């Protein structure tokens, strides 16, 4: 290969290497470029926090009294609400508990069924978490606190000021061998 030719080759190589080097830098330059672009166009702003967290849907102008009730249907358990009533605003997230214990010397499985008074409140009573979503198995003599998490829909008709949430536990037949309660799942 002639001297001239290899000099030519080397010149092309140097240029192409320079392009490769520049493009490596360009990859890094994209970081501030994208940041600037998003800043100018106002999209994807990661540095400013979003609006301070607050629930815009709580209707503080109304207060609803929610009363709790507990019944057993043929179950050898004791079953009571942790509180007889709470005062809540529509839209507010509320946590309450129920206490249950198995007075027998063998495991028993039960399923709680909720009901509401007045009945039309049912459509506005949103349970996020409830022991009634799944069967509950209590071992011999076992006691438990079981949570209910709910929100009352602000669309609740104006004339409803008190809601009664009532649970009835039924024994589930033929489930003695079932494992203890699985993680509960919403939607039941």
């Amino acid at each position, binding site marked *: 290969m002639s001297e001239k030719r290899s000099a030519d080759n080397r010149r092309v190589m140097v240029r192409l290497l320079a392009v*490769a080097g520049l*493009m*490596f830098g360009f990859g890094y330059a*994209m970081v501030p470029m*994208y940041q600037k672009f998003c800043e100018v166009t106002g999209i994807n702003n*990661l540095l400013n926090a979003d609006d301070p967290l607050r629930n815009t849907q709580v209707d503080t102008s109304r207060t609803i009294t929610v009363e709790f009730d507990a019944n057993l249907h043929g179950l050898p358990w004791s079953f009571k609400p942790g509180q007889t009533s709470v005062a809540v605003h529509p839209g507010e997230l509320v946590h309450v508990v129920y206490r249950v214990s198995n007075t027998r010397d063998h495991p028993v499985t039960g399923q709680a069924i909720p009901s509401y008074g007045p009945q039309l409140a049912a459509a506005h009573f949103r349970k996020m978490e409830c022991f009634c979503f799944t069967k509950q198995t209590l071992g011999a003599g076992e006691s438990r606190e079981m949570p209910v998490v709910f929100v009352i829909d602000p669309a609740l008709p104006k004339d409803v000021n008190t809601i009664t949430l009532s649970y009835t536990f039924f024994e589930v037949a033929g489930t003695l061998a079932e494992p203890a309660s699985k993680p509960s799942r919403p939607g039941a």
Partner: protein
Amino acid sequence: MEATHVHGAGHAHGDDHAHHPKGIMRWITTTNHKDIGTMYLWFSFAMFMVGGAMALIIRAELFQPGLQYVEPEFFNQMITLHGLIMVFGAIMPAFVGFANWMIPMMIGAPDMAFARMNNWSFWLLPPAGILLTASMFVPGGAAGTGWTLYPPLSIQMGIGMDMAIFAVHILGMSSIMGSINIVTTILNLRAPTMPLMRMPMFCWTWLITGYLLIAVMPVLAGAVTMILTDRHFGTSFFNAAGGGDPVLFQHIFWFFGHPEVYIIALPAFGVVSHVIPAFARKPIFGYTSMVYAIASIALISFIVWAHHMYVVGMPVAGQLYFMYATILIAVPTGVKVFNWVATMWRGSMTFETPMLFALGFLFLFTIGGFTGLVLSNTAVDVQLQDTYYVVAHFHYVMVAGALFSAFAAVYYWLPKWTGHMYDEKLGQWHFWLSIISFNIAFFPQHFLGLAGMPRRIPDYALQFTDFNQVSTYGAFGFGLSQLLFLYVVLKAIRGGEKAAAKPWEGATGLEWTVPSPAPYHTFEDPPVLTESKGHA
């Protein structure tokens, strides 16, 4: 160049074997473009087998819903390694191998411009292949991110991820060195009488591919380096905990990633632009428009990257822009398909194996192009993103496109490399087995995707079972058919009918003016092209 007269081709050089070592050292130290091309091709085939075995593990697991053979973590690792190995280990090295073997002979050059660097670019590959394969056996296993290496997962994984990053660095270096070599060779070493616009089409596709590689491989290297420093050196490019943005990685990755698909496709176009004219016995239709189509595909490929990211939450204006820009690529691609078909129009065609694979390419790549067009529509892609429809789409363009074109190239040039004709009957068997099993494997995946089956998932809902079983049968058929390919190639290397210097009646170009098998050194003195028009 039917009427081309060539001087200086294929001289017998008495000193051929005087100055290179024998045995294994010959291959380690060689700077000969033909030796290096051969090594690239064997490396590529080995990686194709490894990546193929991984694909079959994936398909075996997907034969039934539920988990049968592998753990989900291992399944993800197979997906990742299969993708990386096939793209960077099998397809790209195959076409670099063809470039090494054929470009110097096509342009009448004695060797590549930087013969020593050529040796280095090849020998970087095996360590990268070993790193990737060995990463399966380290604690925590290989990268499980998919070949796209998205954070946050890629920031969290174990040492296997570092090995994958390091492998990508090495592969990138190899590609850049290889591309510099190819571009310089094409620009500087052409026979003095060969202007650029009379250069064979394969050289044109590689010239532009070389530029693409030099432009985007460094960007990929930058992106994985950022992951590396996020992992170990406390930077927060993508690490949200430190104020970084994981979506930024996708933008950088796909700035590399979309041109990458044309890096794979363009040399495949080049091969087909040789094979179709040879077996239609007509010069390529619309040479100039072909060159402009390649160049515009390459340019547009830089401005469409975010069609892979329609669902990251970009503004509607952004979605519309990327959609229209992507659809625009269909125009030059359509020009190419039109030209190939027009080349065959009223040609006197015969259907030897290379032509069969080229036609298989044409037919199936076009299907893949159409599904790509479907996916480019944002509203549709929102549904199909990350489903098996996408898997079907890119296997039509990568397997039936790039891989079939590579098979066409091997059958077309095998007589030149080995000096023997391959077994035509077995070659045709290979073609028919491949194309049928390919379609059995991948066509049903369109339906799976449309029905909502997600990709990169080891388990699926019951209703997807039937199509998945069909697909798995096809995949194993395809895998086994490739053993036949290996047999045909080995058979041609060991013997067979002597090949003439120009074994294909309609073939044109300087490579057919040297004897078969091509002597170790060709065109030590540049040939003189005396015919004024016509090109390969």
